C-alpha cells in the first residue's frame, strides 16, 4: 500500500501515489511511459509493463517517489475506479483534445474524485495529443476554465512530442508536497482520507519497534 503523504519518511522521503484516469484511447499510458522511460510508441518497444511505474524525483532537496498507477479505461470497468484511486495523493485526468467525449469523462471523474477523496487529492487535467492541434474539438478556454473551477491545474501535453509532460508531473509533485506539508503542519497527516474507502491502510499498522528504530 502506498503510504500517505510521506509523513513517515522523516521529512525528506516522500511517497506519493498518483493515479491516471481517463477514457480508453486518450493516451494515459503513453504519457506516463514518455515521462518515466522517455519512450513513445517507437518501434523498439517490445512488451512493456506500463500499468505501474515508479519515478524518483528530487525537488529542491526533497526526495519524492511517485508510484504511478494506470487504470483501465474501459467503460465496463468504471465501477472499479475506487479500488484504484483510494489513498491516492494525486490524480491526472487525461483527455484527448480531439475527442469531446473524453473531456466529458474527465468531468465525471473529477466529480467522483472530489466526492470520494475530498480536497486531499491534487488534481491535474491533461489535454493530450496537442500534436493534433488541427483536429482540436475541446477549446482551450473551455478546458482551462473548467479546470480552474474545480481547483485543478490544466496542462497541454503531447506524449508523441514529449511536450508538457515533465511540467505536468513536476507541478503535480510540488502541489502534493505542499499538501502533505500542510497535513504535517496540522498534525494530522492524511487524516481526512479515511473511512471513505473501506480497506485499511497497512502503513498504520506497523509495529511499534519500527518507528522507534528507524530514525
Amino acid at each position, binding site marked *: 500500500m502506498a503510504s500517505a503523504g510521506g509523513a513517515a519518511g522523516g521529512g525528506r522521503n516522500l511517497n506519493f501515489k498518483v493515479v491516471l484516469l481517463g477514457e480508453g484511447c486518450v493516451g494515459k499510458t503513453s504519457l506516463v511511459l514518455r515521462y518515466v522511460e522517455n519512450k513513445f510508441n517507437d518501434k523498439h518497444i517490445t512488451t512493456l509493463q506500463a500499468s505501474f511505474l515508479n519515478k524518483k524525483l528530487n525537488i*529542491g*532537496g526533497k526526495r519524492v517517489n511517485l508510484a504511478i498507477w494506470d487504470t*483501465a479505461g474501459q467503460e465496463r470497468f468504471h465501477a472499479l475506479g475506487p479500488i484504484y484511486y483510494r489513498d491516492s495523493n494525486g490524480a491526472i485526468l487525461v483527455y484527448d483534445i480531439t475527442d469531446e467525449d473524453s473531456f466529458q469523462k474527465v468531468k465525471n471523474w473529477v466529480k467522483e474524485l472530489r466526492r470520494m477523496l475530498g480536497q486531499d487529492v491534487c488534481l491535474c487535467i491533461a489535454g493530450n495529443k496537442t500534436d493534433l492541434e488541427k483536429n482540436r474539438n475541446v477549446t482551450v478556454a473551455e478546458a482551462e476554465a473548467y479546470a480552474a473551477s474545480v481547483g485543478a491545474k490544466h496542462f497541454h501535453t503531447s506524449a508523441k512530442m514529449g511536450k508538457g509532460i515533465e511540467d505536468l508531473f513536476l507541478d503535480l509533485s510540488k502541489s502534493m508536497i505542499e499538501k502533505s506539508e500542510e497535513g504535517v503542519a496540522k498534525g494530522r497527516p492524511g487524516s481526512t482520507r479515511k473511512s471513505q474507502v473501506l480497506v485499511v491502510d497497512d502503513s498504520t499498522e506497523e509495529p511499534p519497534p519500527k518507528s522507534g528504530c528507524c530514525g
Partner: protein
Amino acid sequence: MFMSSKYDEDVSENPFFMKLMSSYAELIEKVTVAEGIVCVPKISIASHIAVTREDAEDHILLPFTEGSEDGANEVFKTLSGKLVHVNKDKLTTKSGFQISAEISVLFAETFHGDVNGSYRVFCIDGLINREVEKDKVQSSLKNVSPTSYVQVLDMLWSHSGGQKMRESLDKILNTFAATYDRLEGESLRSIVDAANAHFAKAMQLLLKDSVVGKSARYNHHYMENLKVAVETYMMNAVHKHLFPVIIATVASQDAELNKITRNLRDLQLSDLGIRKIFNENILPAKKELSQLNRYSTPVGRLFCIKRVVAALTKAPRLFSVTRDGTAMMTSDDLLPILIFLIIKSEVPNWMANLVYMQHFHFAKSSDDDEFGFYLASIEAALEHIKTGNIKEDIKPLKRDRWNTVILTESMETPNTPPSPASSASTQSYNSIIDEFFKYVQEGDERAVIQMLEQPQKSSEEITMKMCHPLCSCDRCDKLVSELRTNSKLVTAYTRDNKGYTALHIAAYYGQGLLIDLLVKNHAVVDATDYLGLTPLHLACQRGYQNVMLLLVHFGADTTVTDNEGNTPLHLSCANGHEDCVKALVFYDAYTKKLNINATNELGNTPLHLAAKWGYDNIVKTLLENGAGANIRNKKQQTPVSLAQNVVVQRWLQVAAEGLDFHPISPHFVSPKSGARSRSSSIASAGPSSNSHSDSHSKEVEAFNQEAACFSTVSVSLEDPSEAERRRKKERLFKAIIEGDIQLVKFYFGLQSDSGDIDDDDDLPGSAVVTSSSGMCHPLCQCDKCAAVQKATRKSSGKMSVDVKTNTGYSPIHMAVLHNHSDIVELLILLKANVSLQNHKGMTPLHLACCVRSSLITDMLVKAGAKTDVKDMNSDTALIIAASNGFLNGVQILIKGGADLNMTNIKGNTALHEALRRKHSQTANCLLAAGANPRMKNFQGKLPLDETNDPVMRGLIVAASFRLEEETKAQQNTNANKQILTDFKPENGHISIKELFAAFEEKDLHTLQSLAASIRTFDRKSKLRKTVTHDHSLPRLDGLVRKHSILSFNKNTLRKVRSVDKADPLHVYSLFKSNSMDHVVGNSNNNNDELLTPMGDNSLLPIFDYSEDMSRSYVNLPSSDSLENESSMTDDQIQKKSVETEMPDSPSCCS
C-alpha cells in the same frame, strides 16, 4: 529470477555526489542546461574513493545525437568526450574508454533545482572509468531484501547467538499458532490484529539482541529487510494455522466467487476483448498463477503475482516486428487478462488469498507500491467477476461460428414452401437452423411450433396437389421427390456444428416450456453433442432446475457421462448449483440409478468437486445421501484434502471416519442402486410392499441381490434397512425442524393439499403406495408431476408418527420444540401420541410450555394430552408454565384440568415457582383457580415465603382464608350440588366443584373470574350470531316479536308442553308456569320478582351475588333455543331462557 527489491539511497548524502556539488558546481550547471545525466556510484563504493576532476568529467553524461543510433540505446557523451550507451538499466562504455564495460544502473532520480531545468542522477553499481577493488566494497546481505527462505534464515540466525534466539522465537510462534485455531469465527479485523501483535512480539525479541538491534538502528535498509525476514519466518511458521482461519472467514464469499467462475468456463479471451498479442503469454502466466497456494507467506504470494505479470509482459516471440507500440501492456490490457486468469485458474480461495496478501503483509518493502498496484488490480478483477457482468460478455453459441458442418437425421420430409420467416426460401439451410435455434434460445414457443410443424404441413400440401395420395405418375413422383430432397426444414433432430440439438439449446438457455414441446416432437432426450454432453448435462451445468427436472421426467439418463467422464451431478456440483444437486439426489430416491460416487476421468467424485470449491450445502447434501468421503482421485486426493473451507473439511472428516452422517462403507454405497432409496426399505420390511408395481418388485429383487452380496463383503456395522430407516428418520426430523410441512406430509405419505387430510382415512398406515417413476421430484409441481400427484398417492408407507430419535424425541416433540404449530396440528390429525415422553420424561406439553406457545399448548390440551405427567425433575407442564410466567399456558392447563398442587423434585408447586420467579399475574391466576397456598416445599417454605411483593402476599393470605372456610363449608354442600348440576355450562369450562365452592364461600374474586370467563366465552363463540343479526334488523322487529311472545304465551305454550311431556309432574309445572306468565309479562328487569314465583329458596342466593352473574348465566341457553331465538336481544333472551328453563325446573324442585 526477478530482482526482489530495488536498491535505494539518498544521493544527496552520497560522498561522490557531495564532492561534485561542492567542488565541481560548474559541471552540474552544464548538465542542468543540457538535461544530462550525473552518474553516482553507490554509497558503499563512493565512500572508498577519492574523487578527481577526471572522475567527475567521466561521470557526467550529456545527450549526444550525432552518429548512428543503433536502436534501443540512447547515446551519451561524457564531459571528457567519451561515448556511453544507455539501455534501460545498463550503461555500456564505448569509444574513449580503455575497456568496454557494462555497469548496471541501480536507480535513476530526476533532480529539479530551484531554477528551470533538470538533470537525472543515475546511481550506478561501480565506476565508469575504472574497476573497483572488490575487497574495499563490503557487499552484504544487509542492504538487499531476502529473496528466499534460506536467505531469511541466514540473515536472521547466522550471527552468534542466533540459534538460541531462534529457539525462543519458535517457542513464541508455537504458542501463537495454537491461538489461531481459536480465532475461527472472529472478525477479520481481530485476526489481523492478533497476527500483527505476534509480528510485533517477534520483532521485539529480535531487536533485543544487541548485534541485530545495533545494525538495525544505524541501517535503515537493514531494518526494512529484517522486517521482511521476520515476517517471512513467522508467516512460514504459522501459515498452517492462520490461513485456514482466513479461509473460514471468507468461505462464503469464496464459494460465491467459485460458483461464478465455474459457470464461466466457456469464457474466451476474445470475450473480454484481450488483444491477441498477449495470447502466447497467457499460458505461462496461468501456470505461474496456479502455484499461488504453494507459497506460504503473503510476500511469497505477492512475488508470485508479480511473476505472473512479468510472464505476461514477456516479449512475444512471434511479434518481433511489432506494430506501433501495441505490445505496451496498459491497465486496459492487464485487468481483463487478470480477470481471465482468475476465472481459468484452479485456485479455489481467491478471496482468502486477497485478504492474506492485503492484510498480513506487515513489513514494508521497497516493492510495496508495486505490490499495492497488483493487489488493487486483483481486487478489481475479483470485484468485476463478482458483479456477474461477465456472463453477458460470453457468446458461447455465436451464430457466426456455425456455418460449416451440418448433421441431419432428417425425417421423411417434403417440399419447397417457405419456412415461416418470410424470406426463408432464399435462405441457406444453415441460416434456417440458426433461425430455428435462435427461436429456441429465446423461448419463442410459437415460432418453434411453427417451424417444427412445417414438414407436416408441406407434406399435406403436396398430397393435396397430387392426383391421389398413392399416385405414382411422373408429376406426382416429382412432387414427392422434391419433398424428400428439400433440406430447408428443421426437425427436433437437427443439429448444429457443435452437435447441439434444439433440446441442447433449450436446456442451455433454461427454456423449460420448450423442453416439453421439443420432446413431444420426438426430440432425443439423451442426444449427445460432440463433447458427449446431453441436454441434462447442460441444464445441470447452467443450473436450470426446472429444465433438469423436466428432462429427467422425460426419461433422461442421469448417469450418462460426457467425454471427460462427468455425470450431470458432477457438473452441477462443480458449478455450485445446489438446487440441481438436491433435485438429482431426491429424484434418485425413486430410480436408484444415480451413482453418487461416480468418478470422472480424473477420478473425481461429485464430492471432490463440491469440497474443492467450498459449496458447503452441496457437500452436506451429498454426504447425507451416501457420498463416500474416503474416495481418492487419480492424484490420490480425498475430498478432505481438497477442501479449503474448514467447516467443510470437518464435515468430511467426520463422514470419512464414519461417525455421523452414516457409518456405511463406500463399498456399499457405491453400487448403482445406492443404499438410500425408500423402496429398498419397504422391500426389506416385508409383505406390506406386496401391492407395489412391477418396477418396485424388480427393485426388490435388485435389492435382495445386493443385500446378498453385501452380506459377504460387508464391513458395515449396520443392517442396511436399519440404516435406511434411520436416514429416512433423520430426513423427517430435519424437515420438521425446518418447518417444511409439505415435506413432512410427504414423508408421512400424505398429499400436499392439506384439505383432505382430516376427512378421509389417509393415514400413513393405510396410504396407497404407487409407482412414482413418472415423477420429476417428490415435490415437483410441474404440469406432468402435478397430474401424477393427483392421480396417485405417494407414501413412504412405513414412517410411523411416533418414531423416536435416540434422545426419545418423537416428531411431535420436535415440532413443538421448534414451534411449528402447523406441523403439530398435522401430527395430531395423524393421531400422534400427544403424551409421549422423551428421555427426559418430557411430553410435548412440557416443551410447549418451555417454548411458551399458547396455540400449541391449547392444541395439545384439546387433543387430550395428559396434563399431569411428570418429567425427570418431577415438573409438570403446569409447573414449567408457571415458572416461565407463561400466563396463557397456565390458564389453558387449568382449564384442561391440570392438577394445581402437584409438586416437583424440590417440593415446589406451580405457585411456588411462579412466585419465586416473580410472575405475579401467573400466581394470581393460580390462586384464583384454587391453588393451595399452604403447601410447603421440601425446605419447608410456604408460597408466601417466596415473595416480598405486598400485593401478592395479601392475595395469598386472602386465598388461605378462603381455603379454610371452604373446608369448613365442605359438609353442607351436598344438597346444593345436585341443583348446580343444571347450571353447569355445557362445555364444561368450569368444574362444578369450583362453582359450588365459589357459591358457598361467596368469594367475589372467584366469582368474578368465573363470570368473566363465562362471559368472554359466550360472547365470542355463541352470542355473536345474535348480535350481528340484531344490527341488521330494525328495532321494530324485536318489539313485534316481544309482543307476539307475550300474546302467544298463554295460548300456545300450554299446548306444546302438554304434548311434549306426559309426565304427571309436568302437569303441575305447566300449571305453575301458566300462572307465572303473568309475572313475566308485567315485570321487565327485576330478577327477584321474576324468580320469586318459583318458590324455591335454594335458588335465591345464586342471584344475590351480582347482576353480572345472573346475566351471564341466563345468557347460556342451549344451542337449540339459540337457533330459534337468534335474533333476540339480551333482555329478550333473559326472559325467553327463563321460560325455556321452566319445564326442567320442576324436576329439581320436587
